């Protein structure tokens, strides 16, 4: 039983604290995951307090029209504009700061939706099994047979490009991964004794699924959630880059890189810095996810 399951199953506060302490101990053994956690805490902080951190919030469309300052267009990185300015003289750093909001929101929405659909599907397919289970898993397999980015592209087309529709498109292609993960875990614990025991004392199917089986899949879902946050941010930015996500002048990272590409190589900073932001955000979630994978001792691929 993994530490997280111990924690979940612990009856007394004392045991619960002990399990939590063990998890924290193992986590601290891995400095890289602490770095990841630090990055994510930082990102969330930046996203929440963006208007107070950014020096030119209006350049990101916050509180009024973006300032257009042609006198100051394409300023090289300097103390006044650490990431330089773009073709309309907007401060790229301020825009990158506000971009944090879009990326985190996209990741959260996509994964909430994916987990909300995928976990019940996997639970039902695995536990109920039979014809229903077969049909559900075959549908899942088919979704999994197209790379997510490509399927998201295909879904995004009829929806008209916008950030909201990009989120929907990505969410639609993401849930099968959770369905398959949960399905696999359920199959492996379904016949175990504690489940048999609950069945024996007459627990209802719903109760068994959510009280007895779900806790076992908590650990892999936690790990996958963290790793996928990074990956969802990547895909969201990719759609933005292709012009299928957020539209200019939204300060979304992928969209900004696409805009900046027109001014390469002379205005190199335009595309470079939003990319650095994506890179750091994704790195943070990967580091954390990898650390959690070690701590919780699960493999999610």
């Amino acid at each position, binding site marked *: 039983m993994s530490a997280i399951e111990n924690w979940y199953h612990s009856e007394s506060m004392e045991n619960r604290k002990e399990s939590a302490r063990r998890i924290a101990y193992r986590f601290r053994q891995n400095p890289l995951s602490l770095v990841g956690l630090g990055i994510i805490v930082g990102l969330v902080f930046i996203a929440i307090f963006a208007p107070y951190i950014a020096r030119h919030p209006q350049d990101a469309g916050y509180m009024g029209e973006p300032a257009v300052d042609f006198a100051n267009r394409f300023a090289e990185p300097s103390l006044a504009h650490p990431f330089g300015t773009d073709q309309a003289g907007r401060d790229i750093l301020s825009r990158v700061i506000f971009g944090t909001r879009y990326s985190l929101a996209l990741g959260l929405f996509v994964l909430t939706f994916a987990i909300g659909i995928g976990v019940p599907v996997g639970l039902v397919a695995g536990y109920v099994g039979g014809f229903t289970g077969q049909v559900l898993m075959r549908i899942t397999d088919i979704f999994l047979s197209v790379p997510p980015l490509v399927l998201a592209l295909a879904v995004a087309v009829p929806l008209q490009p916008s950030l909201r529709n990009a989120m929907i498109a990505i969410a639609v292609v993401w849930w099968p991964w959770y369905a398959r993960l949960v399905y696999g875990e359920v199959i492996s614990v379904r016949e175990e004794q504690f489940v048999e025991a609950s069945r024996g004392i007459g627990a209802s199917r719903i109760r068994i699924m959510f009280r007895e089986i779900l806790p076992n899949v908590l650990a892999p879902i936690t790990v996958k959630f963290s790793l996928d946050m990074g990956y969802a941010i990547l895909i969201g930015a990719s759609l933005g880059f*292709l012009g299928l996500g957020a539209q200019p002048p939204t300060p979304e990272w992928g969209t900004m890189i696409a805009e900046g590409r027109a001014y390469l190589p002379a205005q190199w900073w335009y595309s470079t810095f939003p990319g650095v932001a994506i890179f750091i955000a994704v790195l943070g979630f990967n580091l954390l996810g990898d650390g959690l994978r070690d701590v919780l001792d699960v493999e999610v691929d």
Partner: protein
Amino acid sequence: MGFKSYVIRRTLAGIPVFIGLSILIFTLARVLPGDPARLALGPRATDEAVQSLRDEMGLDDPVVVQYFDYMAGLLQGDMGISLITNRNVAADLVYFFPATFELITVGMLIAIAIGVPLGIIAGRNKDEAEDNASRLFAFFGVSMPAFWAAILLQLVFAFHLGLLPATGRIGVEAPPRLTGMMLVDSLIAMDFRAFRSAVAHIALPAFTLALAPMADIARMTRSSFIEELNKDYVHALHSSGIPGKLIAYKYVLKSSFAATLTIIALDYGFLIGSAFLIEIVFAWPGMARYGVDAILANDINAIVGVTLVVGIVFIVANLVVDILYGYFDPRVRYGGDGE
């Protein structure tokens, strides 16, 4: 159970997936809100023009009828007319696919050629400097957005250093088209100038494409290598007198490569996804760029065609990997209990 029957079983198992995939893609394209004809013609087109395109595309038939019409056409090599090229989508795909295939194949080979040794070096020196360096590289590789990495590499190697061309497939006269893959065609034509140029052109996009799977493969190889190294059989073979190096590079490697293979299949899919971004940045005239053009032009036939081909490539890649897996790990062939 023999290897041959395993291969046959696996191949047959791919067919229902393909049929399901075609239904899925077709349904998505037809059921999602938005009128493909209206999208294609734009908001200013007259209602009559839209209606006549709808008739032409058979959009008013029931979806099931449309699907069977499409599949019947597909079997005869008819995938509908592309709005952007005005040619049959099938012809377009035949024309554009080889370039993409060449790119992703070279990319995957680079990823394996660098990723596997990196993983082994890390695994053999667990927790030492080599290990940490390779793990850090792996984290960087999977976290870097492919299109951004492409731009950076282009900036440095093409614009700044001028070492490699920034865009395109070839800088000299192209060899006569046989396979559609420049590297192969130029070799067939014994045109080494063209070959050198093709290599120079594919280097940057293929390497960019390889970054993420390379990192992933290194990570997987490392962890499966370490896991295998701690198994009883390693100690058993060692105590029977087989030198450690041979155990590591023959026994452990073969076992752990089986695990790496599953990641390779998964990465192959992501690689195709990244190709959609990379081909844009490097102006690589392949199927992915054609797909993006189709998407931006709301060219529904082309989109369905491209998605279908991507799905097929992914299914075939999985099949090949499964077969290789069966070759590397006999347990799979025998229905695998073992551990």
